[in-house]
Structure formats: structure tokens, C-alpha cells
């Protein structure tokens, strides 16, 4: 604790170290953001190549959005996200645990680690293109299913809401589970081996070890994974956009919020797009605050984690 007082001398370094971040943020994100928020109160769009507005309309954009199908698209986004995220995080946790578990003696760990991340390397749009081809009514998946006799008629995967949603979820899962695995693995490897050794001596089995040691120890990174996944989910765009040709077919059941935003940007409706952005911003803010609270209790600046660390050191010493 003594060290804390000493650090005061160094406080200017804190400012210096965080300066580049804030300068860059201010220029490239903050100014555009203010612009966006400002226009959300205006009627401002293009008709042909004529600009209409900006005319101040107060909250009108916000109100008319509430009257639109926005909430339906939010629900779509949530459904698509859950279909992909649940398997993603479960499998990632299990794999990460397996990879660091020396007792499992997994052969070719390096190979598997490399392979599971590969789908993330392809552009989402290219990946969606491949999927589209594979799952089309006379695509390879259908011909395989038919040749092994699972179905007599080709299945119209992209024709049903369930099919399209599952495909989008599956693609998101496939693209991101490797990413999560690596991240969680790095977190688990960051745990001191002593803790594991101690648990082994105490006779912990794998499940106990996973739930009582690994999970609590990687909580910060887990929260990170969760938060980035939520943001990624809210921003879901490329995959359903390409897979459904921007329409969220059938019947707009796979239309996500960003696809909705995109259709406003496409029509250059800055006012409406701005208002929608502000909604998105608020929603994601609330979600992340919630998650952050849930995983980090009352530790918004990490001081508690530091205290914990200190305690741990004491215990050790």
C-alpha cells in the first residue's frame, strides 16, 4: 500500500501514456460522433442528388423509428446472436481448457490451434459467398444429403426463417469460436501454474478445477470476450447481408439492426441513420454496463483486482 503514495509523483506519466489514444479518438471518432448525434435531430437526406435539409425536427426521427420495425430487427439480431454465441463460448471454453490440460495429452495441439482459427481469416463476405453456394437448393450440401438418402427433395435452407437464421448463427460460430478459444487460452496460460499444481495436490478433478479455479481466474478476459461478442453481435452485418442479399429474407426475419442502419445510410438518410445510431449506442452501452458489472462486481477501475493480487501475494509470502 505504501507504493500508492509514491506513485503520485509519476501521475503526469499517466497522462502522457494515455494521450495518443485520446487524441486519436477525439479526432477520428469523437468529431464524427458529434456530427452523427447532431444530425439525428434533423430531417436530412438525399432525394436523387438533391439534398433535403438539414431541417431541425427535434425528436421526430426517434419517434418514427420507434413506430417502425426496429424492435423486430433488434429481436432478429438477438436471435441470430444467441444461435451463434452459445455454442461459440461453450466450445471455446472447453477447447481452451483441453489445450492447456497436460493430462489430456492431446496430439497435434499446435495443428488444432492453428486450424480452428482459420475460418476467421477469410473475409466474412467471401465466407458468406461460399456458404451461399454450398447451401443453395442444388448446391453440394443438398446433393450430399440426397445421395445418402437423408432427404428425397432438396432442402431450401435459405427459404425458411429457421434455416437462414441457423446458417447465419452457424457461420458466426465457425468464424469466431477459434478466436475466443485463443483468447481464453492465453488467459488460462496466464494463470500461475502453481495454482494448478496446488489444486492437483488437493485432489481436484477436472470439473472442479475448471469451475473453481480456471473460470474465476480468467474472469476479466471472459468478460472481455463477452463484451466484444455482444458488440460484434450488435454490429452483425456482413454475413446476413451477403447471405440474404441485403433483404433479410424471408420476410425480413434475418434483418439485423446494422442492416437496417445500412439501408438508411444507403438512402443517405443522415437524420434517421443518426437517430438509429444513437439508439444502438445506448442499447450497447446498457448491455455492456450490465455485463461489466456482472463480471467485475464493483471494480470499475481495477483497484480491487490489484488489491486481490496484493492479498494473494501476502498469502503466498
Amino acid at each position, binding site marked *: 500500500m505504501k507504493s500508492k503514495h509514491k506513485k503520485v509523483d509519476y501521475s503526469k506519466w499517466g497522462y502522457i501514456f494515455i494521450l495518443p489514444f485520446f487524441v486519436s479518438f477525439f479526432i477520428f471518432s469523437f468529431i464524427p460522433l458529434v456530427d452523427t448525434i447532431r444530425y439525428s435531430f434533423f430531417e436530412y437526406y438525399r432525394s436523387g442528388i438533391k439534398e433535403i435539409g438539414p431541417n431541425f425536427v427535434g425528436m421526430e426521427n426517434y419517434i418514427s423509428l420507434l413506430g417502425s420495425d426496429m424492435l423486430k430487427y433488434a429481436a432478429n439480431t438477438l436471435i441470430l446472436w444467441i444461435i451463434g454465441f452459445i455454442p461459440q463460448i461453450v466450445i471455446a471454453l472447453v477447447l481452451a481448457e483441453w489445450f492447456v490440460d497436460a493430462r489430456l495429452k492431446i496430439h497435434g495441439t499446435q495443428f488444432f490451434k492453428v486450424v480452428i482459427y482459420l475460418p476467421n481469416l477469410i473475409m466474412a463476405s467471401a465466407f458468406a459467398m461460399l456458404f451461399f453456394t454450398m447451401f*443453395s437448393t442444388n448446391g453440394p450440401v443438398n446433393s450430399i444429403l440426397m445421395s445418402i438418402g437423408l432427404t428425397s427433395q432438396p432442402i431450401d435452407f435459405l427459404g425458411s426463417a429457421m434455416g437462414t437464421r441457423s446458417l447465419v448463427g452457424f457461420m458466426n460460430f465457425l468464424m469466431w469460436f477459434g478466436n475466443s478459444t485463443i483468447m481464453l487460452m492465453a488467459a488460462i496460460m496466464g494463470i500461475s501454474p502453481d495454482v494448478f499444481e496446488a489444486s492437483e495436490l488437493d485432489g481436484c478433478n477436472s470439473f472442479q478445477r475448471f469451475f473453481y479455479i480456471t473460470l474465476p481466474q480468467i474472469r476479466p478476459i471472459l468478460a472481455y470476450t463477452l463484451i466484444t461478442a455482444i458488440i460484434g453481435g450488435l454490429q452483425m452485418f456482413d454475413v446476413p447481408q451477403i447471405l440474404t442479399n441485403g433483404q433479410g*429474407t424471408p420476410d425480413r426475419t434475418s434483418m439485423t439492426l446494422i442492416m437496417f442502419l445500412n*439501408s438508411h445510410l444507403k438512402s443517405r438518410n443522415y437524420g434517421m441513420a443518426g437517430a438509429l445510431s444513437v439508439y444502438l449506442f445506448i442499447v450497447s452501452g446498457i448491455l455492456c454496463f450490465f455485463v461489466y458489472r456482472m463480471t467485475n462486481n464493483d471494480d470499475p477501475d481495477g483497484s480491487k483486482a490489484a488489491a486481490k493480487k496484493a492479498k494473494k501475494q501476502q498469502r503466498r509470502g
Partner: protein
Amino acid sequence: MKKRVVSIMLIAAMAASLAAGCGKSSGSDSGNGGSSSGGSSSGGSSSAGASSGEEGKVINIYSWNDEFRERVEAVYPEVKETSKDGTVTVLNDGTEIHWIINPNQDGVYQQKLDEALMQQADASADDKVDIFLSETDYVNKYTDADADAAIPLKDLGIDPDRDLADQYDFTKVTASDVDGVQRGSTWQCCPGLLVYRRDIAKEVFGTDDPEEIGQKVKDWDTIKATAEELKAKGYYTFASYADTFRLYGNSIEESWVSPGETTIKVDQKIMDWVNSSKEWLDAGYLDKNVKGQWNDDWNKAMSSASKVFAFLFPAWGIDFTLNPNWDGEDGVWAVTNPPQEYNWGGSYVHACTGTDNPEHVKDIILAVTVDKDNLLKISKDYSDFTNTTSGMKEAAEDDSFASEFLGGQNAFEYFVPVAENIEIAPLSAYDQGCVELIQNSFSDYLQGKVDYDKAKKNFETAIIERYPDITEIQWPE
């Protein structure tokens, strides 16, 4: 302390060298023109057009692909050479054409063009757009008189009545604003035909003669009876319901949005398309698995394994879509008259308001879209059906215009009567969105995913998203 200075300097140096790298390359792009043309950037004379004395040194042309560049290179006599990457063409007098190509995909082309047009007034002479291209689906957005993006041809010194007398009338109407002032010109006109498989025709009808097949598909009632025959032998008449859309969409009686209004009036013809497509689809005349155009299933419907008898295509469709997707011998496909005359596509060339090169622009437009010899050359080299009534008549009788892919059939013979009978539907600036979204919305209905009213509602939602100024959608009774 020292360390910090060093690392900051390193970053600064890195940034500087990057900036320098970028600056340099962009500088060399426009530098040549920029340095020598200081004198000609007189702002006032820009809209006056042809009479302004001095020409700028850089002609900026906005397009979505290399099609127009190839045509210009082929027929514009002033072209000296084009750089290897295809971005700059130098003319004999040293003027440079800068090709600004943006993909059509996701509306990027129009986005960038709109951006440039909005800044046109403030742009320096060498950055001003001089020529831009548009397609039939959205030509009206740019020829709109209020938008004032495209210069009337008259102001350029081209008299449409005299100079463009040989062009097809409907192309002139298409490129005109509400008041009938022509603001663009095209080298290409796109009458569509019915392209069918000879082998299937022989099997089902016992003949593959284009005249006889033409009789069997001459109007909607006849073709329906023909479809039944095809179905009996296990063939589909067309691949997808989207294939016939142009035929109906081209014959609407009122434009989607009347000038000055904000109401979309869905024409009865569009609903006819919906209803007959539903009927055809349910009757099994169309392949249920092909949903719309420009997708894999549709492409595959053009291969030899497919059961689809015919497609509806203009000249470019036969050469650039059907041909690459066909995997069999040449000569299996043949053309005949469609059940209804229609036009599909066409790229319009516009002189951009504010251009500093009116003389060159005029020359280019005349060379590529008016000169008959040039147009015939384009027809021969690129298989375009070009915009010269007399020339196309000659081509129809000239065996050297016969197509290899069609097994020596001269398609121009069939194109000409279609082109002459095309009644172009009244256009509006909202056409592209309406045409695209009505097909998308009713696609769900045709496939049985939603009911009729839901499809209507989905169209209303989508169209207002696309065009915020639309206030009402009227459906025919």
C-alpha cells in the same frame, strides 16, 4: 527521457514517411495536369458550355466498369494511348482522360458519383467531373432538370433532332428530363429477345426453326399454351419469375412516381406480373428452385444439364451471361421474338454540369454514340446492339454480323423489329429502388413465405427506407 524522445520521433518519422508516400503518388496523378492548367480555371464560363475558349487538361470520366473506356479507345480517333492499369488515357493533344471507376456493387458507384457532383461547384478545374455514365434504371435521377447534373445536349452544341436523328427514339426519351430536354446519349440500345434451346425445341415441338418457335411464343396467351407442352415433357419455360419482370415493368402506363409528387403508384402491370408469376410458378412452368436472377441457381439454369427452355435477354445478356454459363457446343441456342417487346439496360453518357472541357466532351459523345461507322464497329467488335436505326437494319442483313454462339444465326434480324417497337415506360428518379424492391418483396409471396398483404406491406416499408421523401403508396384496385 531520451528514450521517449526517440520513440516519439520514430513514430513521427513513420507517419511522415507514410504521408509522404501517399502524398507523392496522389500528387503525380493529378500533378501533370495541375501544373499546366492554372490559366483555364475560369469559373464563370462553365455552364455556358461549348463556346468557352480554352479547354481543361484533364477529362474526368465516372463509370462503373471498363466498357465505356474500351469503346472510346476503339472509336475515338484522338486517343493516343492508355496507361497499363487503365486509369489514364492520353489524347493526341496531350489532354488526359482520367477514368474513375467504382463498382456498381452496393450502390458504391452512385454514392461516389453523387459525392463528386455535390462538390462539383467547388472542385478545381482538373477535379471536376466532365463525363459520367448512368444506367436506364437510374438515368432519370441524373437527367432531372432540378438536379442540373447533366448538361442538355443542345447547350453542348449537339442538336438532338438533327444530329441524333438516326438514334432510336426510345433512347432519346429515356435520356430526357420531364420537359423533353435531352441530357444524355447512348451508344447502346438493349432490345430483348427470347433465347431458347434448339435441342429442347426439337424434342418437344419437333422443330427448332426460329420462325415457328416465334409463333409459339408470340404473346402471353400463346406462350402459356406452349408452357403447358413443355411441362408435359418435363421442361420449364423460364428459369425464374424475375425473368419476365422487365417485360411487364417496361409497359407500365404511368411512372412509379409522377413528377413533383411523393406518391408511388404501383401500376396494374406490376400486379399482373405478380399474379401471372404466381400462376406460372404454381403450374410448374418455372423452376421453383431458382429464386430471382444473378445467383448461382440462375446461372446453372443456363447449363446443359438444366431443364429450362428459354431466357429473355438483350444482346449483352446473350454474350456476357448466357454464353459464359453455357457448357455445351455453340449453336444450341437460338433467338426469336419475345412475347412482348422490351428493353433491358443501356448505359447513358452525360456531359456533367460545370465541365471545363465542353469541346472534348462533345466530341467524345458524338464519336461514341452518334457516328454510324463507329457504332457499327462497336456492334461488330463488342456485339452491342448499337443506337443507329439505319446501321442496325444493315447489320440485320449482313451475314458478317452472325453470331458464332448462336450457330450462325444473325440475331440483329430479330433485334431490329423489337427495337423499333419498344415503347419505353415513363421513367422517374425512383425507378431503381421500386423495381428492385418490388421484386424482392413479392419474391417471398411467390415462394409462399408470406401472404399477399404482407408482401405489400414489406414493399411499403422497404421503399420508404430507401426513399425517405415518399409519403404514400397507392396500389391498383
